[in-house]
């Protein structure tokens, strides 16, 4: 490391191409091993040795039957829970954030602390206290799997809050609201026809990250004895590890694509810009996937 600083891609302190390739190649190579091992595992023919794709073809042709069935039911549960959680974000969090932003700016700090707090409370701790709460919920509303969405609404709170807040910071909500009110709009149309379209990107990003978190949730569902995608995969894994690994690979790939979409939503460009006339344009939203929150796998 001697000599002047190289300038790569306009960043004067970036490493040169050889160093970059070496680091990324080495780490990437090591991190690829477990994924490759999963693929290799599913291709094993059996005791005789050798490889073929019969487990994949059987699983994909078998479709909705056999080992796959409980996982598909569980996937249905998880998708339902994701929808429920997103509804909680849309119906409870978004209006509250807007109300605090417009009418009670002094409560902003309080709201932020409340929303970020779940990062500091491990799911395994929350579940200890949720068990009694859910036995009450079960008595009142029944013990349907959907009720888990009430807990997931809390676990996604920090992610959703950050995604929406970073968008909110870049939009002049007060002026927009006052302009709309002056022109005779009721609060309903201010919310739905003025504010929500302006916050579309943040809300979408928050919703996507909520979906990703809910689809990946294991701890709460497992300890409250509810079935979701992750708990079902673990159950299948005990009887038929091959099917479980194939389904995991598919799930990981789909999740990767989903997060790639989120990343694009978070990028400060694209079609959304032209519909945001009164936004302080030069405030690049940090990628919502990049919320520095405890991930708790």
């Amino acid at each position, binding site marked *: 490391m001697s000599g002047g600083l190289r*300038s790569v891609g306009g960043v004067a302190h970036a490493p040169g191409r050889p160093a970059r390739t070496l680091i990324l190649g080495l780490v990437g190579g090591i991190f690829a091993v477990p994924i490759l091992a999963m693929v290799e595992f599913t291709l094993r023919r059996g005791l005789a040795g050798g490889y073929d794709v019969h487990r994949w073809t059987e699983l994909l042709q078998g479709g909705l039957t056999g080992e796959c069935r409980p996982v598909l039911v569980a996937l249905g549960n998880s998708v339902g829970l994701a929808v429920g959680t997103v509804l909680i974000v849309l119906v409870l969090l978004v209006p*509250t954030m807007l109300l605090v932003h417009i009418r009670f700016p002094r409560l902003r700090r309080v709201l932020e602390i409340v929303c970020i707090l779940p990062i500091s409370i491990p799911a395994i701790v929350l579940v200890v*206290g949720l068990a009694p709460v859910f036995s009450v919920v079960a008595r009142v509303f029944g013990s349907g799997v959907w009720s888990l969405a009430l807990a997931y609404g809390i676990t996604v709170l920090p992610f959703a809050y950050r995604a929406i807040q970073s968008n909110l910071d870049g939009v002049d909500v007060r002026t927009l609201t006052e302009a709309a009110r002056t022109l005779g709009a009721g609060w309903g149309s201010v919310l739905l026809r003025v504010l929500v379209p302006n916050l579309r990107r943040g809300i979408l990003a928050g919703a996507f990250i909520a979906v990703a978190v809910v689809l990946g949730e294991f701890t709460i569902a497992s300890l409250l004895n509810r079935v979701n995608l992750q708990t079902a995969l673990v159950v299948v894994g005990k009887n038929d590890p091959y099917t479980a690994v194939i389904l995991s690979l598919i799930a990981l790939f789909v999740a990767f694509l989903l997060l790639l979409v989120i990343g694009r939503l978070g990028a400060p460009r694209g079609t959304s810009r032209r519909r945001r006339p009164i936004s302080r344009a030069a405030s690049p939203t940090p990628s919502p996937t990049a919320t520095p929150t405890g991930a708790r*796998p």
Partner: protein
Amino acid sequence: MPAAAFGLLPFAVYVVLFLAVPTLIAVGTGFLDTDGGFTLDTVATLGDPVVLTAFGSSIWLSALTAVIGAVVGALVCYALLGAAPDGPLRSTVDSLSSVIAQFGGAMLAFAFTATIGIQGMVTLVLQERLGIDIFADGVWLYELPGLVLPYIYFQVPLMVITFMPALASLKSTWAEANATLGGTTSSYWLRIAVPVLAPSFLGSLLLLFANAFSSYATAATLISQGAQIVPLQIRSALTSETMLGRENLAGTLALGMILVMAVVMTGYSRLQARAARWQR
């Protein structure tokens, strides 16, 4: 009190019911005896050797994987500096990191069973090609040491996600100023970049620690028997009330975890506040 304040009510009720109440129950039951009276006996359980060992193991595991994850992750961030923020390389690495850090969980247990399980790919290759038996001293994958590699596997991506914004906020003008004043690459890193980045790096390190400390899914899937770390001890306490012959043990363990998390997250927010100075 304006009427609009009622608009805050639904969210407030929801947060109280599903965040405040569960947290208070979780922590509060640590102070209750079997009849519901107040006691400090259950809290004294935190001094029990079995509990202390679990906390020790959890802290050791979290610290080890946080340090390795932070160093490797920071190197990856450094390597990514030259790539365009919106380019295909960065967005692929971002998405992959998020998948592994947020979605892995139980699946990482499958992945590592397929890699270094008894019939795992790496295990077999080492055995057949090099004659190395990684399980010569017994199968350690389903014990505490077996958690180290899977945990590092989700810590590195989390470091990439959390540390990249800090590293990307290094201004190229600082490097130019350094060069103009006759500084070298090493003086740039030692005198400018490292001091500016130190709070962010330490903050991310604490976040990684908290992440490993509170992680449950990977450990629960890999280790089906036993309670080597605190989250698994809570599992045992929840599923069988008789562990250590004490009631409300789950609450006591939850209290202990909250205490550790409170210390770590306080440090994290202090460091974040320091780091924010340079990120405007």
